[in-house]
């Protein structure tokens, strides 16, 4: 069985500061890894995904994540956050792009002016 642990439920950060949202996963097979963002009262939007190849993945809105197989981690980073980045962020794992996603509990990022 697959599982995802997001180590921080809430992360407050000042505007223009860097941020890292942590994600660890467990799986007995090769996985695909995803980060989704959810703005208030909206659906989930894909930020980035790792399927194979380069372990550093760049996504939308200036976010990037690094796949670390030995540490089973897929942490999300942004060098300088904006107020508009305030949202809930979900890390997820699946066996492929069209099999069910297993989600972490989410990290609420609050950007403070």
């Amino acid at each position, binding site marked *: 069985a697959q599982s995802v642990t997001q180590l921080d439920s809430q992360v407050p950060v000042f505007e223009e500061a860097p941020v890292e949202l942590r994600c660890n996963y467990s799986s007995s097979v090769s996985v695909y890894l*995803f980060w*989704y963002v959810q703005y208030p*009262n*909206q*659906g*989930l*939007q*894909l930020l980035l*995904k790792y*399927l194979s190849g380069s372990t550093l993945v760049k996504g939308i809105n200036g976010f990037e994540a690094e796949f670390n197989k030995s540490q089973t981690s897929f942490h999300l980073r942004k060098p300088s956050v904006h107020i508009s980045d305030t949202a809930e962020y*979900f890390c997820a794992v699946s066996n*492929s*792009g*069209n099999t*069910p*996603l*297993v*989600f*972490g*509990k*989410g990290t609420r990022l609050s950007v403070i002016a």
Partner: protein
Amino acid sequence: DARVTQTPRDKVTEMGQEVTMRCQPILGHNTVFWYRQTMMQGLELLAYFRNRAPLDDSGMPKDRFSAEMPDATLATLKIQPSEPRDSAVYFCASARGAVETQYFGPGTRLLVL
């Protein structure tokens, strides 16, 4: 800009009533997922279909929930009878292939009184 659509966006009903939620996947996507989001459980899979055939509905309470795909452009999720513990946001997502991304709809926010 192709999107997954869901109706209704919001639903308030009384305990014991039937609730039907509808989803229109992105044209050409052959895999459809139903997820439920609650504060306590987070995001969890209820059921999913490929080429209109159910592949996994183990996440659904079988006695009250049913999911169908009458055709390739419509997926439905029904709850009968509804209970207060069914209050949640229900998301539909669709995907096209094994290396594709799941695209989420805006969700149906259900409140059962």
